[in-house]
């Protein structure tokens, strides 16, 4: 290999990037070629002088302190960084959950208030000297009685073959809304059926489904624009059975 070819390897040689075999071969050549040896020496010297000259600037202590602080505080900083990223949605979630809880809470309060009121109506009617204003087991007597007394009409089920007996009915009010209060009996237990128009904040916003509250079982649903409540201190099965009859009739 001639000097020109070796020359291409000088940089890699001084940078220590030649493999061992090539480096050895080049060293052998340098021992024999004064010109190439001088050239390589010159490159090594330039490399060293650049190395020394290049280490020129030192950061100020103040700046070092600033960076060191920002880096040393990494867990905290990262924490606070995450905190900032997460804070907004987290706060939003908290506020939302508070709002939902308040709303749900208010809804629950409203629902409980309605159920309590219905239970009160049920109990007070039964405790009254005249639980019903129309005393009849005949639905064809009870239903027409409500005409003109409440602003809607409804259908009552045929109870033939069931355990339920109609005792009678009365006009009642729930949240300033007039409705029908019917009293049924099953095995000596009274069950109240309330029928209201399904409107007004108190009534219309109630959910449907069975409820057990204040030792009463309660079922409520809407049908043909009417809201039905079935309340009694009987089993949920009895409430459900009467509800089914009413639904089929409605």
């Amino acid at each position: 290999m001639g000097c020109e070819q070796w020359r291409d390897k000088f940089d890699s040689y001084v940078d220590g990037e030649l493999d061992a075999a090539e480096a050895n071969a080049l060293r052998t050549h340098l021992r024999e070629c004064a010109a190439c040896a001088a050239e390589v020496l010159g490159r090594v010297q330039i490399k060293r002088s650049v190395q020394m000259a290049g280490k020129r600037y030192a950061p100020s202590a103040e700046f070092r302190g600033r960076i060191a602080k920002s880096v040393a505080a990494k867990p905290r900083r990262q924490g606070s960084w995450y905190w900032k990223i997460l804070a907004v949605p987290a706060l939003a979630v908290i506020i939302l959950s508070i709002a939902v809880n308040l709303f749900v809470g208010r809804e629950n309060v409203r629902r409980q208030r309605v159920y309590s009121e219905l239970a009160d109506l049920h109990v007070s009617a039964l405790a009254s000297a005249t639980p019903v204003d129309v005393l009849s087991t005949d639905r064809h007597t009870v239903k027409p009685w409500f005409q003109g007394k409440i602003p809607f009409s409804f259908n009552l089920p045929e109870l033939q073959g069931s355990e339920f007996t109609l005792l009678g009915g009365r006009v009642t009010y729930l949240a300033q809304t007039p409705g029908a209060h019917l009293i049924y009996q099953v095995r000596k237990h009274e069950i109240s059926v309330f029928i209201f128009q399904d409107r007004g904040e108190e009534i219309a916003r109630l959910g449907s489904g069975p409820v057990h509250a204040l030792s009463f079982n309660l079922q409520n649903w809407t049908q043909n624009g009417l809201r039905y409540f079935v309340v009694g201190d009987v089993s949920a099965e009895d409430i459900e059975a009467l509800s089914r009859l009413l639904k089929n009739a409605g």
Partner: protein
Amino acid sequence: MKVPEKPVRDATFEDLAMPLFDQLYNFARWLTHDTAEAEDLVQETFAKALRGFSSFRPGTNFRAWMYRILRNSFLSSRTGLRTMVALDEETGESSLPVESTTPESNLIEQADREMVQQALADLPVAFREILLLSEVEEMSYQEIAEALTIPVGTVMSRLSRARKALRDWLPKRVEGGRHGM
């Protein structure tokens, strides 16, 4: 001249980055020619690296990664955009013949530290940075390739051209200095 890789696993960002602080600052200062800009650049580099540390893969070269971040930050800075001239790597010869007939050792003897510093400062930033990475940081070609995101072959050819540019600069000034005496 290869610096052994420190174990990266389990090390915190602080453990890895702070030992590089001085040399990163030196490099930044060489790139920007300005103290305030260098500080901004180093600060930006540390901030970016800290943010990106979770994505840094243990086992890869942390130092080259830091230099890459610093350099990319510099390139996107105003000074970087202004000073970084595109190098035509394709037409550049991989090896350049030495034109000077004077033994370089003689030239270097006269080229004191300030002169080399002036030479470095005058060189195009692409030459300056690769010389700094190779000579000052003593990075391997592979490390330089990672730091500059260029192929190893390009590292070799650019380094060769940078050194030739430096050699060409030095005798010129040395001659000028002599005439001035």
